[in-house]
């Protein structure tokens, strides 16, 4: 089953700023297949958020789509009308945000909010409430009928995030975008949410685009991983390939830096020295070269292409080229 659901094809997005155009995304290409969980990893400023808002077309006014397409079920969303986008958001594509404390309206009951988002449905109010209760049950909220009458502040953080997931899945979307859904939660709740997402994914067969900077969570949940750095995809592939056989120095360093990887107490933890380049004033060549300990002369002059190294594993690094040609 390799039905492609979402295709990001050579997407380049700029922000127009007083300092000139900030090249937030450059030549982003990857797919999400039906029913697949794809993780996007990268540090702050790598363009994860711009990517999500571009897919949903919820971008800031100074955003310019320079090139490329975002095809959902074969149709380019960048060309869709605002009306078409409205019909898509929350129905075919829905999203769970990072902060469970701020996603709900504090002055409406959970039941009312879950009714409101079913505005497209022609069912009776009683049926809609029953559907809402069933969804709350599915994400593990005990006594869902009674809980529908409560307000967001009466739920814990972990419960609120599960409610947000229940609401996102209510319309049985084909694609669920989860933007760092566990960052604001502690470890036990994080695990609860991941396990719940895996269960729901099996039940509803929706694809999940899971954004996180927590490598442990990505390793546990995702089928495939896309690694982003400074607005570009540097590597993508199956989760095992990426974690066990990374082909881009940035991916390798990122995995090394995770303290979860180091079992013995270390006095000095590995870091990636240097800063992310200024996206408004991009250097030529490879964007990672200033921080890369394996940089060569070629890295300064030419931008490495995202090569396919083997079936499904892509990386943008000249080191692999040397290997391939020699």
């Amino acid at each position, binding site marked *: 089953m390799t039905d492609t659901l979402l295709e990001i094809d050579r997407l380049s997005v700029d922000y127009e700023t007083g300092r000139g155009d900030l090249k937030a995304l450059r030549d982003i290409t990857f797919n999400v297949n039906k029913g697949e969980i794809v993780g996007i990893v990268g*540090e*702050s*400023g790598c363009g994860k958020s711009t990517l999500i808002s571009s897919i949903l077309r919820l971008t800031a006014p100074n955003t310019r789509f320079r090139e490329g397409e975002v095809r959902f079920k074969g149709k380019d969303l960048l060309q869709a009308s605002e009306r078409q986008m409205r019909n898509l958001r929350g129905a075919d594509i829905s999203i769970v945000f990072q902060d469970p404390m701020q996603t709900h309206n504090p002055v409406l009951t959970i039941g009312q909010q879950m009714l409101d988002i079913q505005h497209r449905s022609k069912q009776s109010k009683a049926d809609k409430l029953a559907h809402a209760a069933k969804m709350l049950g599915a994400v593990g909220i*005990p006594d869902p009928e009674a809980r529908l009458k409560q307000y967001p502040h009466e739920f*814990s*953080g*972990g*419960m609120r995030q599960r409610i947000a997931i229940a609401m996102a899945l209510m319309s049985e979307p084909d694609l669920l975008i989860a933007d760092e859904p566990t*960052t604001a*939660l*502690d*470890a*036990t*709740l*994080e*695990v609860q949410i*991941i396990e719940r997402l895996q269960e729901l994914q099996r039940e509803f067969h929706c694809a999940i685009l899971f954004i996180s*900077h*927590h*490598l*442990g*969570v*990505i*390793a*546990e949940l995702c089928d495939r991983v896309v690694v982003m750095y400074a607005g570009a995809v540097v590597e993508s592939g199956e*989760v*095992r390939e990426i*974690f*066990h056989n990374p082909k881009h120095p940035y991916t390798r*360093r*990122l*995995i090394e*830096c*995770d*303290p*979860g*990887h*180091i*079992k013995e*107490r*270390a*006095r*000095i*933890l*590995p*870091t*990636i020295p240097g800063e992310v380049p200024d996206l408004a004033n991009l250097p030529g060549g490879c964007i990672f070269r200033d921080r890369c300990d394996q940089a060569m002369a070629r890295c300064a002059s030419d931008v490495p292409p995202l090569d396919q190294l083997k079936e499904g594993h892509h990386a943008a690094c000249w080191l692999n080229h040397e290997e391939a040609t020699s």
Partner: protein
Amino acid sequence: MSLLNVVDLNTSYGPVNVLAGVSFTVEPGETYALVGESGSGKTTVIRAIAGLAPAQNGSVTFEGQEIRGAPESVMRPLRKDMAMMFQDPVGSLSPRLTIRSLITEPYRIQGMKDRDLDAEAKRLLEMVNLPTHFADRYPYQLSGGQARRVGVARALALEPKLILADEPTAGLDVSVQGELLNLLNDLRERLGLAMVIITHNLSVVRHVADRMGIMYLGRLVEEGTTETIFKDPRHPYTRCLLSANPEPDPDARLERIALKGEPPSLLKRPSGCEFRERCPFAKDICTQTPEWEVDGGHGLRCLAPLS
């Protein structure tokens, strides 16, 4: 003499009993980690130590001096030796002050008029590896990691003996997190700094803490050296917590122990062992109330400990 000695600390907000008798000590130069779920009272403990949250009962002594409930006139001079790093890196910096004013504010508050504030600002920024021209910036011009480092610089301005750090690495990227932990480890060695650190990232605890205490519903349920706790957790809650740490390896075989249900309400504490309703290892004896027992430096509150 311990640097910090917390004995039977109790905090209630009206009927809500947030801390139900927390005791631990921190020696000079030692790092002590408090871990536990959201709502277990970790933040209240360090805020109560710093005098920022009330504590109706118990005792907090800092270098032998009782400071629980001490008036501001007593606390203020002590804050030279006891600095706080708050949870929200940007939110804890006043948006209207420059970084220079922010990191030199401790000198002004303590009335240290003889200091050259520009020179101090420069020294502090260099210490936390920020460019010195950042002194003229405002908090909104900083990234989360940079704001966090400003928080560290401010906490270290007066060369304290103790730092109280609330989730110092939350929300940071892994590489920046490593930088911050390296910085704290380095300063600890150079300045002999002691730390109480709150975090829910157990991988972080393993690399910075000498000893750790595990909190549940406003009580310590287990305490020991970090090494022993990771190797040989005795309390079922600790075991669950440690097993919930996602590993950055897709092939890691996780023997995950699921916690049942939600933490109970603080308004209605369960009878007997307060963890028993969620405990996968609960036995009949757990309807009785477990006492805090210490054996060879390892503290435990459990009637059916794991071996």
